[in-house]
């Protein structure tokens, strides 16, 4: 059976190419040809915000989407979708989803916004976003007074608490806004994607590794379709996704690092890597904002508690 899965990737994204070339053939292999997946780009069938309902209604067989898009449907999605300045690496949070209770919270959120018609197979991020900036932001203190495009609620709250002015310019205007100096920095994408779309031409002081965002994705299937699969195929689908995401996380980090090293060596771009002390300061400010945000719903609180328990367990609040 061929499942049509809408992603939140653009057609030309590195992730789309990588998944299509390397990983889509493997799912057929792992299920002996019983399951095939066809990925369609962001917004190509329904707008990203609408994918849970689209999966429930059967317009799509499933989705592979950044869950931050659903923050307005249920606040828990913001906590699960991008715990601003939380984890250090995508692998940490992938493990949280896989073994630390993340999936269960995501399923509860899916049930809250649809009528149990969406099955969450897996979740987790694959990249830490860089922060393209047109002026140097070298330390935590440098954030003060900077105008930063960050439309998402939690990110805006963290930047505000850190002394910056968050703005919500639509993505189509980001490019011009950075070029002309309407904003000092803008939430965008992974280093490799920002490099491809030329954002560093207009924002030559990217912060990499990023300091704020690590968007998490979900992999879902319409419950009816999920139930029609054999247990072996269900397991295969979940294993496949996590394998692909861990591999993609490694690959994107590799690409990002290579490009950042190239740009560091060059003249035009200065790649800024925050000291651990500055990152810790931001995480401390952020934690207060997570807690405020988690008050928006019981499920959001549950999501944050699960995060904190796991992050404590792996020693992210070690000191």
């Amino acid at each position: 059976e061929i499942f049509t899965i809408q992603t939140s990737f653009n057609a030309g994204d590195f992730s789309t190419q990588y998944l299509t070339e390397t990983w889509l053939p493997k799912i057929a292999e792992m299920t002996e040809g019983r399951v095939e997946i066809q990925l369609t780009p962001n917004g190509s069938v329904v707008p990203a915000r609408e994918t849970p309902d689209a999966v429930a209604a059967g317009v799509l067989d499933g989705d592979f989407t950044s869950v931050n898009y659903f923050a307005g449907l249920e606040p828990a999605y913001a906590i699960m979708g991008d715990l601003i300045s939380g984890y250090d690496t995508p692998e940490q949070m992938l493990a949280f989803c896989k073994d630390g209770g993340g999936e269960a919270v995501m399923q509860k959120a899916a049930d809250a916004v649809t009528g149990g018609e969406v099955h969450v197979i897996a979740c987790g991020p694959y990249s830490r976003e860089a922060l393209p900036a047109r002026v140097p932001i070298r330390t935590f203190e440098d954030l003060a007074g900077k105008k930063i495009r960050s439309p998402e609620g939690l990110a805006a709250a963290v930047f505000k608490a850190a002394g910056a002015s968050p703005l919500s310019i639509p993505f189509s205007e980001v490019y011009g806004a950075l070029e002309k100096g309407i904003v000092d920095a803008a939430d965008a994408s992974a280093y490799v994607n920002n490099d491809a779309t030329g954002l560093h031409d207009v924002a030559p002081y990217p912060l990499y590794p990023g300091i704020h965002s690590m968007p998490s994705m979900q992999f879902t299937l319409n419950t009816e379709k999920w139930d029609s699969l054999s247990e072996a195929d269900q397991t295969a689908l979940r294993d496949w996704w996590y394998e692909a995401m861990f591999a993609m996380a490694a690959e994107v980090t590799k690409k990002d690092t290579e490009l950042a090293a190239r740009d560091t060596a060059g003249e035009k771009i200065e790649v800024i890597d925050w000291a651990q002390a500055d990152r810790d300061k931001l995480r401390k400010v952020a934690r207060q904002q997570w807690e405020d945000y988690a008050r928006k719903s019981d499920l959001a609180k549950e999501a944050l508690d699960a995060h904190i328990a796991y992050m404590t367990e792996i020693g992210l609040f070690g000191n």
Partner: protein
Amino acid sequence: MKRLLAGYAASMNRISVFIGQSCSMLLFACILVSAFEVVMRYGFDRPTVWSTELAMTLCASAWVLSVGYVTERHRHISITMIEMLVSPKLWRVLRLIQMLIATGAVLVLTMALWGPAMKVLRRIETSGTALNSIQPSYFKLLLTAGCILYILQLAANIIHWAQDSEGDVAGGH
């Protein structure tokens, strides 16, 4: 019955025109909000979190709610080449068909929009931005309301057609 229908059509016209002309104030407010954001950001270095969503909401309201006014003035855009090819009598019949197709299509669209609109009434959907406004819920309700207004005005236009009391219909249906 005939007078009742004529009364409905006349009052529907008035309602549509009133709402439509009120919409012009919303558009004006939208212009001011957008300009205000520039002043706050560039002049005072204090960007607002609300201007984008507010401007969009004002503008969308004007767009959608002006539909009755646009329909009453026959300003929907269409190709009217066939008017020159057929007899006035046939054209008159065709105009009824156009209005019936429009009514049918908008009715089905209303049915399509109905489910999502009822859903946001049960469980509110917000924008998830810093402002976290109820904009997405509002838009779903707004569009449904706009469709209903469109249908009501189409009904009035059909009554005018039947009673030969249409005004200038050069613009469209």
